[in-house]
Structures are given as structure tokens and as C-alpha cells.
């Protein structure tokens, strides 16, 4: 595309060459046919020769130069013509010459070249004026006569300047356009290169759900080539189903969700059927595109095949699960044998052996605890941790948990108080019901209280219950060392243990709080910690509060098949619904309650409540044993 300036130069050069050629042809023709008609033969000849030079120059040098030095070449051509014109003007009467009007044209045309050229030609003209006026002896009538002509000359140069201004503006606009279009092309090429080199499938759809862009990886993953996928409904190409082969609904369709929520949605549990019928596990992230009025205008989807990762994950979980299962049997056997050895009704050992066996028993118990937590984590990953959900009276559950922990807490010389509502004076507890599995929820509470006991050297533990119409919040505060802010965020991660002297001496698997989080989240709640180093920590969790109607509905659903109290606790009466009588709930279900665990263990315990021969110092199980029966 030619810009304005180039075009002007080209036209100007052609015009000048044509003028030169015309003059030369006319003059030479007149010379040939009627030499007598030539008024001033020397001048005419000179004009014709210069015209011819201009024409020849145009046909030779200019043609060679115009691609690289168009402006310069045109300037040379203009100079030749200019000299010719000056020659004509000066020999036909100077300022009074009729050819002076051509000079005015030349001044305007100079605008094409630039400001400097106008200034040069105007200056030369003015000098010529001065010279002519001087030549005429500055007589007044002559000066007056030519003032208008001078004005026209200056006006001509102003016109030239305007020409210049306009053409440069146009040319800068044109070149900007050119640059932009060049950039656009470059960007397009770049984008295409990026798209095709991205390993993830990229798909862009418009508001009518038609595919607008479909990169190489997307083509490879789906088996659809770009031309067939282009402009058709994305659902035909990206055939998504849930992991259990159900079609997507508005509730679990990532596109629908992305448009509804207006943010990126990531799913890693969908299965895509390729064009050839293969099924692959997909990780897909969908980002909605909105126009200025926040109307959805399309979406960008990034997806990749995670079949292999899923398989590896499954194998890992299976391995952990199998390994923990298999190893638990020998661990249980070791623990059982140690228990037998320490039971005075079964074996006879001396005090020293008893002491060592006691330590061995504690150690093996920790090992058992670790295996149990690992299994729970595997279950959590498989999403089958929560168990059956029912309406649970949070206050009652807390009370029974606190009662059960009193012994452990007092043994360590700490205090444990339970407080309902903001003020301690509030005696009547509102009924806070939450939807949860009572056993699992109790595990969480016991785990948190137990942690508080473990990490508190002196002072006390306070269990609080608060709530409003929507939520029920349980807090477990201690007066321990507190948790540094940088650790607080990681506490609920798998295998995270704060590395300090306290944690090194206190046993744990690094899974307890992770499991608490998974459980609380599975009941649609959340758990967090508030702590100031040196002042203690408060672990809190919140669960949605059930309305009275919901509670009744859930209790009715439970009643036809009463949930017996878990077998660990011999129920005093035919097992009633747990919600109705939480005090019948087990105290020895799988919970990391070390002091109970430490003595009674999650698997097998060495001591019998009925073995009076045992030294109470070594085996203070009696209490926990009786607690369990009560």
C-alpha cells in the first residue's frame, strides 16, 4: 500500500517530466518546421534542452532511484524544472513575466517535500524580489505594483505548508495503520504458535456454544480435527460425563457453573468420550468470557488427559490401604501378646519386665494409631469417611466428650471447662442441632481436646459452644505455647507437623487435624485455628445449624431403623437412637485419645478392669475401663 507522500512524489515527478518533454517537443518541432517563428532562439533552445534533460532524467535515473530515493530524485527533477522556470521568467520580464504564475505553483508544490524546501524556495524568491526592486531603484510605483504579487507568493507558500501538513498527517495515519496491521499479523502468528504448542487442549466457544477456536492438543485429545469442530456445538465435541458415567446436569456442568458464578471452574473428575469412543479422565478448567455489560459471550476451556495420574493415585491409595491393613494384623498380634504378658491372670513377669513391656506397648500403640489414621486418610480420599449423617445435639455431644476427657485432663494437672454462649453465666443451653455423623463428630472433638491437652503444660482447656440461627461454632482453647502464624495455615494439611521441641517429644501422626478438617468439611462446615504464640490457641469449627423442622425430619428418618450404639460401649438398654441419648455413645471408638489410647489403646489393651494384680501406677486403665462400661 502506497502512502500519501509516495503518491504525491510519484505524481509530481510524472507531471514535471511531462512538462519538460512537452516543452522540448514543442520547441524542437517549431525549430524543425518554422524556425523563423522562434522569438528568442537562445532562450527557447535552453528551455527545450532543460525540458528534455528533465524528461530523460525521469526515464533513466529516476526510474532507477525511485524505489530507494524517491524524494531525493523528485527533488533533483524539480530543481531542473525550477532552473528552467527561473530561466524563462527572468528572460521574459522578471517579476512581470506571465510565467511567474507557474512559479507560484512551484512554491505550493514545494510543500510536498517538506518545510525546509518551502523556506528555501520562499527565501530565494524574496531575495529575487529584493534584487529586482533594487534593480528598479526602489521606486514607489513599482514596489506598490508588486506588493499584491508578493502577498500572493507568501500565500502560495502558506498553501504549500498546508499541503505539507495535510500530507504528513495523512501519511502518519496511514503508517500507523500499516504498523498496526503488521502488529496484528505478528500477534496472530504468535497466538497461533502458542496455541499449537500448548500441551493442554484449548477451546474457545461463543455465546451460542459454538466452537471458535480449537488447538492442536484439543484436536489430539478429542479426535476431532479443527475444520470439523469449527462452529459446531461444543457438547458434540467435548462429550463429558461424570466419573460414574452419568450425563452432566446444570448442577455439575463446569460451563454452566462458570457462567453462573462468573469465575473459573476447575474439575478433575469428569470423563470425556473421544470421537473414536475412547474414554479419558479429564481435568478441565472453564473460564467464562463476559462483555462490558457482564453478559456471557462465551468461554475458554483448557483440558488435559489425567487418566494416568488418576491411575497412579488410585494405585497409591490402594497400596497404602493394603499395606496398612496387612500390617495391622501383626501389630495387633504384638499388642495382644504384650497385653497378655502384662496380665497377671495369664503370665507372671517381674516389675522391670513390666516396665519395658509397658513402653513397648505404648510404642506399638502409636504404630497402630498411625496405620489407623493412614487408612482413614485413604478413605477420606475416596470420599467415604463421613458415615451416616443424622441430627446431632451439639451441646449434648460436647458435654459427654468433656465429661469423658475430665479424667485425662485432671491427671495432667490441667482444668477443663465447658461453657455455652458468650457469657459464662448463661445457664440454659439453646438446642444446637447439626447434621453430622455423631461418632465422627465426636472423634473430631476428642481429637481437638486431646491435642489441647498434649500441648498445654499448665493452665486449662476451655470448650465453648456458640451459635446463631445459621451456624453452630465450637471452640477449644488452651493455654499452651500457641502456634506461629506461618504454621497456622498448614496445620490442617496432611502429614504437617510443626517442627519444634514440643512436637518432637509429643507423639503424633500428623494426620489428626487433617482428618478433622476432612470430616468437618464433609459435614459442610469449616475448621480453623486462632492463636497467639505464647498465649495459647483456639481451634474452632462451625457447622450449619439445623432448624427444628429439619431436626424432626431427620429424626423420623432415623427412627424406623434405630442406630444401635456402636458396639464398643455395652449399651445399658436396647440401643436407642444416638441423637436421643448421646451419653450412650462409645468412648472408645477410633479416636486419637492418647491417654485413653495410651492405656486402653485403639486395638487391644493389656489391662483388665478385673485384674486386681496390676500395679495401678503402671496400668491406670481401670478408670477408662469402667468409664467404658458405664
Amino acid at each position, binding site marked *: 500500500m502506497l502512502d500519501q507522500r509516495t503518491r504525491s512524489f510519484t505524481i509530481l515527478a510524472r507531471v514535471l517530466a511531462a512538462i519538460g518533454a512537452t516543452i522540448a517537443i514543442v520547441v524542437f518541432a517549431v525549430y524543425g518546421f518554422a524556425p523563423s517563428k522562434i522569438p528568442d532562439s537562445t532562450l527557447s533552445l535552453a528551455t527545450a534542452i532543460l525540458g528534455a534533460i528533465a524528461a530523460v532524467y525521469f526515464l533513466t535515473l529516476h526510474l532507477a532511484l525511485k524505489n530507494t530515493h524517491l524524494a531525493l530524485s523528485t527533488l533533483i527533477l524539480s530543481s531542473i524544472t525550477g532552473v528552467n522556470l527561473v530561466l524563462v521568467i527572468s528572460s521574459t520580464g522578471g517579476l512581470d513575466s506571465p510565467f511567474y504564475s507557474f512559479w507560484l505553483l512551484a512554491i505550493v508544490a514545494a510543500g510536498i517535500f517538506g518545510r525546509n524546501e518551502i523556506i528555501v524556495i520562499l527565501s530565494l524568491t524574496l531575495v529575487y524580489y529584493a534584487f529586482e526592486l533594487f534593480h528598479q531603484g526602489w521606486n514607489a510605483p513599482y514596489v506598490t505594483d508588486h506588493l499584491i504579487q508578493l502577498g500572493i507568493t507568501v500565500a502560495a507558500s502558506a498553501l504549500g505548508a498546508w499541503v505539507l501538513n495535510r500530507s504528513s498527517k495523512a501519511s502518519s495515519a496511514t503508517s500507523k495503520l500499516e504498523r498496526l496491521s503488521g502488529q496484528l499479523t505478528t500477534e496472530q502468528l504468535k497466538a497461533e504458535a502458542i496455541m499449537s504448542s500448548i500441551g493442554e487442549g484449548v477451546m474457545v466457544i461463543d455465546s451460542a456454544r459454538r466452537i471458535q477456536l480449537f488447538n492442536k492438543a484439543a484436536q489430539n485429545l478429542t479426535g476431532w480435527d479443527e475444520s470439523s469442530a469449527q462452529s459446531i456445538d461444543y457438547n458434540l465435541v467435548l462429550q463429558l460425563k461424570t466419573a460414574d458415567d452419568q450425563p452432566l446436569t446444570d448442577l455439575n456442568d463446569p460451563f454452566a457453573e462458570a457462567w453462573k458464578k462468573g469465575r473459573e471452574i476447575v474439575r478433575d473428575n469428569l470423563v470425556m468420550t473421544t470421537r473414536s469412543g475412547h474414554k479419558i479422565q479429564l481435568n478441565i478448567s472453564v473460564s467464562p468470557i463476559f462483555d462490558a455489560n457482564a453478559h456471557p459471550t462465551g468461554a475458554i476451556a483448557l483440558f488435559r488427559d489425567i487418566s494416568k495420574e488418576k491411575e497412579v493415585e488410585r494405585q497409591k491409595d490402594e497400596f497404602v490401604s493394603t499395606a496398612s*491393613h496387612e500390617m495391622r494384623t501383626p501389630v495387633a498380634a504384638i499388642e*495382644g501378646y504384650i497385653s497378655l504378658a502384662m496380665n497377671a491372670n495369664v503370665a507372671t513377669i517381674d516389675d522391670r519386665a513390666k516396665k519395658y513391656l509397658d513402653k513397648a506397648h505404648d510404642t506399638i500403640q502409636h504404630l497402630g494409631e498411625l496405620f489407623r489414621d493412614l487408612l482413614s486418610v485413604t478413605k477420606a480420599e475416596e470420599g467415604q469417611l463421613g458415615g451416616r449423617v443424622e441430627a446431632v445435639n451439639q451441646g449434648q455431644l460436647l458435654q459427654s466428650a468433656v465429661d469423658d476427657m475430665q479424667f485425662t485432663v485432671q491427671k495432667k494437672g490441667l482444668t477443663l471447662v465447658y461453657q455455652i454462649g458468650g457469657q459464662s453465666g448463661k445457664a440454659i443451653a439453646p438446642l444446637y442441632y447439626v447434621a453430622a455423623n455423631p461418632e465422627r463428630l465426636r472423634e473430631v472433638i476428642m481429637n481437638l481436646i486431646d491435642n489441647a491437652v498434649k500441648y498445654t503444660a499448665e493452665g486449662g482447656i476451655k470448650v465453648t459452644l456458640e451459635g446463631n440461627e445459621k451456624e453452630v461454632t465450637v471452640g477449644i482453647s488452651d493455654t499452651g505455647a500457641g502456634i506461629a502464624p506461618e504454621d497456622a495455615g498448614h496445620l490442617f494439611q496432611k502429614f504437617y507437623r510443626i517442627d519444634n521441641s514440643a512436637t518432637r517429644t509429643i507423639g503424633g501422626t500428623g494426620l489428626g487435624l487433617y482428618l478433622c478438617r476432612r470430616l468437618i468439611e464433609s459435614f459442610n462446615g469449616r475448621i480453623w485455628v486462632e492463636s497467639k504464640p505464647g498465649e495459647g490457641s483456639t481451634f474452632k469449627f462451625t457447622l450449619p445449624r439445623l432448624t427444628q423442622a429439619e431436626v424432626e425430619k431427620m429424626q423420623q428418618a432415623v427412627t424406623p431403623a434405630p442406630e444401635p450404639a456402636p458396639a464398643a460401649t*455395652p449399651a445399658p438398654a436396647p440401643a436407642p437412637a444416638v441423637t436421643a441419648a448421646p451419653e450412650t455413645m462409645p468412648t472408645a471408638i477410633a479416636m486419637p485419645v492418647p491417654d485413653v489410647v495410651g492405656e486402653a489403646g485403639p486395638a487391644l489393651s493389656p489391662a483388665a478392669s478385673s*485384674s486386681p494384680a496390676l500395679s495401678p501406677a503402671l496400668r491406670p486403665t481401670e478408670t477408662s475401663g469402667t468409664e467404658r462400661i458405664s
Partner: protein
Amino acid sequence: MPSMAKILLVEDDVNLREIYSARFAAESYEVITASDGEEALATAVRERPDLIVLDVMMPKISGFDVLDILRSTPETKETKVIMMTALSQESDRQRGESLGANKYLIKSQVTLEDVVNSVKETLGAAK
């Protein structure tokens, strides 16, 4: 305190069998053992125990099947049964109870003493 009651312990793991036997014996129970479901059924009919402590996860016949057969056999229809399992799934517990188990204990959740207490209580309730 119940004494001299006869307990049939069905457990495929030899170590756990020995441990439970010894512990039950320490409570003055008469303990007989079986290491798989078939043996358990034969022994149960022959010995007529007061209580069967039955492991669920066993080769050949599972504890659930053993319980099912016990309940449909006239000689053992009324025999008390405590099921012991590593399966902690709710559905398994329900299955055990619907088949007529008197108690359903999850191994990882109970101590040896809990088992002893459960035995005492189950036998106590029978008398």
C-alpha cells in the same frame, strides 16, 4: 460374674486366636476355637457353645455366611454371637445386625478389654 460359660472363638489369624483364647481363659471361660467358617459351623453344632466370637473376614465361608447358617440351624439358632471385623463400614454393621448378631465390634475401634467386657455383658444378658 459368669463363669465356665463355653465360648467358641472363630478367628483365622493364629496369633489373635491365641491371644483371645488366653484372655478369655483368664476370665475362667471355657474356650474352644475354630480357624475357618466350616470348622466353626461343625464345632458350633457339636459343642453347643454359649457364645460365638466370630471373625468376619475369613477365607472360604465369611463370617456373615456363618452367621446366616447359624441362625437358620435349630441347634444354634439362639446362640449368642459377637461379630468382630476390620470392616468399619456402616453397611457392614447393618448387615451383621440384620443377620442377627448380638454385637458387632470393629477391631480397630475396640480394645481387648472391650471385647472381654462385651463377652461378659452378652453372656450376662443371657442369664
